[in-house]
């Protein structure tokens, strides 16, 4: 049984996955970030509902971002703690790739652009088709960005999708969904089957943006 944790947006969600299928899922999604308070009770609740203890988990999967720094801190620290304490592997799932696959599976589109809201007119985006996903990038979206894609076989997916709806043709599908632990099921299982794990000691989430610090040069005297 794999425990999946998704905390990259204000949707805080967990899912228990067995053989690639969700057996139990729980989420809290409000305007505020409730992850610090709710994530662990949700995990405990899921285990209880599934009538298992943490000892019976075989792996922990965490959605690795990009996304909210606070969400990532809480989700990744929680996943590391479980992996470390239970001596079970840690799996990192690329959040945008996961969203893209979700978009392709739930629409007839051939290409998905996964988008997580990064405030203002920025999104974290990745272009996903059935074979590949481009590396995530932080984009200031404008109309020209979409010119490269066939509008009638395109889906925009994620919580950053709706703010681009005015920039694309009416034939493009806009799937305004939050990343969710239940979307991680198939990929988590695939990682498990292929034994694609990350090192619990040194793994870091995908912050995407390097944090640039301004150094003050002003003299006090």
């Amino acid at each position: 049984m794999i425990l999946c944790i998704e905390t990259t947006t204000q949707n805080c969600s967990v899912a228990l996955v067995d053989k690639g299928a969700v057996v139990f899922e729980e989420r809290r999604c409000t305007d505020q970030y409730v992850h610090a308070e709710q994530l662990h009770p949700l995990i405990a609740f899921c285990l209880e509902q599934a009538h298992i203890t943490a000892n019976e988990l075989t792996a922990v999967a965490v959605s690795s971002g990009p996304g909210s720094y606070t969400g990532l801190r809480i989700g990744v620290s929680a996943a590391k703690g479980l992996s470390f304490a239970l001596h079970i592997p840690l799996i990192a799932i690329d959040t945008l790739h996961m969203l893209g696959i979700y978009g392709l599976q739930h629409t007839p589109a051939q290409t998905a652009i996964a988008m997580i809201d990064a405030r203002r007119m920025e999104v974290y985006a990745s272009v996903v088709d059935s074979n590949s996903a481009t590396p995530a990038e932080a984009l200031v979206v404008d109309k020209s960005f979409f010119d490269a894609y066939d509008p009638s076989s395109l889906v925009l997916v994620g919580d950053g999708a709706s703010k681009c709806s005015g920039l694309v043709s009416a034939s493009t599908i806009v799937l305004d969904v939050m990343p969710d632990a239940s979307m991680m099921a198939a990929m988590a299982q695939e990682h498990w089957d292929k034994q694609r794990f990350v090192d619990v000691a040194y793994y870091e989430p995908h912050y995407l943006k390097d944090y640039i610090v301004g150094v003050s040069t002003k003299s006090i005297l």
Partner: protein
Amino acid sequence: MNQNASEAILLAIESSCDETSAAVLRGDVVLSNVIATQAVHQQYGGVVPELASRAHQSNIVPVVHEALTKAGVSIRDLTAIGVTQGPGLMGSLHVGVSFAKSLSLALQVPLIGVNHMQAHIMAHFIRQSEAFEIPKLPLLCLTVSGGHTQLVLVDEHLQMKIIGSTIDDAAGEAFDKAAKVLGLPYPGGPQVDALAESGDPTRFVFAKPKRNGLNYSFSGLKTSLLYFLRDEIKKDAGFIEKERIHVCASYRKAIVDYLLIVMRDAIHQYPVQSLALAGGVSANKELRRRFLALGEEMAIPSFIPDFEYCTDNAAMIGIAAWYQWQKKEWADLSMTPQPALKW
């Protein structure tokens, strides 16, 4: 203390600022205390919260692993998990608290949220050796760090009352800011102390802060130094270069005089059995000497913990957690970090 309590094995985690630390205790004895100091902030002249949090994320597992290994303890042997709940930087606290909650959930052992400032004082109750006698209560503690300056009266373990505190800057800040204007690298407090050792403390006199009951105020002293240096530099551009050690010594004396004169007042007001010094600034050599001299003069036993228990460390979180654990002051999985945690 019952047999059970002395055998309890606690893992404690501290991540409130820029130190990632984990400790293992058996009862009130520290088996390991691992501290990873984040070097990343030095180039910015202060702690950058986002970078601190990211560094905690990459340090937490190696630090906890090392603490368990050094203690020779298996993670399955743990009785409870203690973690700093606050006060501190939100992003930093998140990492420790979320990680600790997962350990508690996975191992099915109690979780204990610890107040970092109380823990600095509780560090005095770590049994440092077989012969070590822990301080008698009531205890009066002067806690001095980069963020706090407090006089705390401890009536019972964990029962503490703040009887005085700074109304503006902390003493540690007053040292760090002086270091900055004197052109010393961050963190400058310890550098001021080191240079002051060879300087003349009577060379310069700074304005004495106004007395305000048992409270402190350091902003006036800081400004006094700033204006003093401005005036002197106008007369001689090389003033700081020439007089640095004496400025450090005189300024340090002013701070220590002030810290202890208020503490002396507190001793006259409260019947205390022991005196204690806590927090990062308790590493200050002049403060240590003068604090111990004050205890001797007043004939009250005085305590300063080993240096590794003075600065931010998880052993102090562990000892506080151990006392809380005995009283069953346990948290549940919905506990959240509190950047401005009070008591």
